[in-house]
């Protein structure tokens, strides 16, 4: 071991590798609140190294390859929770039917991170600063979760409960993300940050088809935000510029090292305007 400088290590834990979704759920049920699912680990392991999380058991679901898929399911695309960001980014099916999501996945981290991180991990982690929760929210996605007592579907708009908190019960695992096809809607993803691989200071995922639209905001509060006032304004015929003024109606952005709350609100209106202009072309 080097002197004077020690590695950042997570607190000690037991490691269990699940061979199936059912086994993973049964393991987590057995260990209760002290257990966490480990997918790609690119959100959870940094938290554990910073000791912001210290689960006593990790249930590794990273090898459940039957939960890594992207399928055309008629009116929507079904994405297995363990599909990696790189596979979302490069999917021809998504490029054709949900290009906004494929593009947003390209904005996540960097190539190394995208080789490991998964869409389900990102959504279950429920970080308001992550790109994919807000994007799937804007797209009106449905999340399928499996638990000891069966399977249920949760609308993205009902999923995010607080900072890193979701509607998932401790024994439930996110298994599939269902994203409606965009059917040719215009779209845009705007990410404002200082360095290429940083989290968004503010991000916007938007789509528009005539009077219909959806706008999701990244890092504008304790949860990803659905900017429904903007969509309502567009639906009632408002101009893009006027609709964008309502960007922060549903948001309570925090102040931090990168930006004050007021600056975030300003950024949100500018980025929503740019996004809707691009999506309206």
């Amino acid at each position, binding site marked *: 071991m080097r002197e004077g400088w020690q*590695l*950042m290590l997570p607190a000690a834990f037991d*490691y269990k590798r699940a061979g199936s979704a059912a086994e993973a759920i049964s393991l987590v049920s057995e260990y209760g609140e002290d257990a966490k699912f480990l997918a790609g680990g*690119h959100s959870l392991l940094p938290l554990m*190294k910073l000791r912001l999380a210290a689960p006593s058991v990790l249930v*590794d679901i990273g090898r459940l390859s039957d939960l890594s898929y992207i399928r055309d399911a008629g009116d929507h695309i079904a994405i297995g929770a363990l599909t990696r960001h790189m596979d979302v980014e490069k999917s021809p099916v998504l490029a054709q039917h949900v290009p906004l999501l494929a593009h947003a996945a390209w904005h996540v981290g960097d190539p190394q*991170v995208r*080789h490991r991180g998964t869409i389900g991990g990102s959504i279950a982690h429920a970080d308001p600063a992550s790109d994919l929760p807000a994007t799937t929210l804007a797209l009106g996605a449905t999340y399928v979760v499996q638990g000891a007592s069966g399977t249920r579907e949760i609308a993205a708009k009902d999923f995010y409960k607080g900072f890193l908190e979701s509607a998932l019960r401790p024994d439930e695992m996110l298994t599939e993300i269902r994203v409606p096809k965009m059917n040719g809607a215009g779209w845009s993803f705007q990410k404002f940050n200082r360095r290429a*691989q940083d989290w968004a200071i503010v991000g916007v995922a938007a789509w528009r088809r005539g009077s219909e639209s959806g706008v999701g905001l990244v890092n504008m509060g304790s949860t990803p935000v659905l900017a429904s006032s903007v969509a309502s304004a567009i639906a009632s015929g408002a101009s893009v510029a006027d609709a964008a003024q309502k960007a922060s109606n549903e948001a309570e952005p925090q102040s931090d090292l990168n930006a004050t709350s007021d600056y975030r609100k300003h950024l949100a209106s500018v980025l929503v305007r740019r996004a809707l202009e691009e999506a309206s072309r």
Partner: protein
Amino acid sequence: MKISLTVNGELRESEIEPRTLLVQYLRENLALTGTNIGCDTSSCGACSMHLNGEAVKSCTILAAQADGCNITTIEGLAKGGKMHPMQEAFMQNHGLQCGYCTPGMVMAAISLLEENANPTEDEVRVGLEGNLCRCTGYHNIIQSVLACAKGGN
């Protein structure tokens, strides 16, 4: 717990603590210290290596997650005393200054060309966004990667 993985073509078996990080395992258990640790937080890319042929950041992967996988580190690139073409390109184009980011840069650059054999300069810049060079020696790093791609390697 026991893990068994292939590192630079050699099967290695070890008894480890579950929280052991992949980079820590390689450096401390296997004495493969060519892979550096920079930021500890998957930002800087100094610890990049290949897991099943793709660049990953080994400070944010448990050795347990790599059980059964195929790992290549900077030490595994040269064959028969001959540098890998990417290493050669870095040398020819002065793609390093202090050298700390170099192993990670080289591993990320090889993975980049695996996925895009003939990238534009812009694609190289974006493709290496996960690797920081504190010397800011980016220009020659980009030139090295482009030269390697042009050489058909």
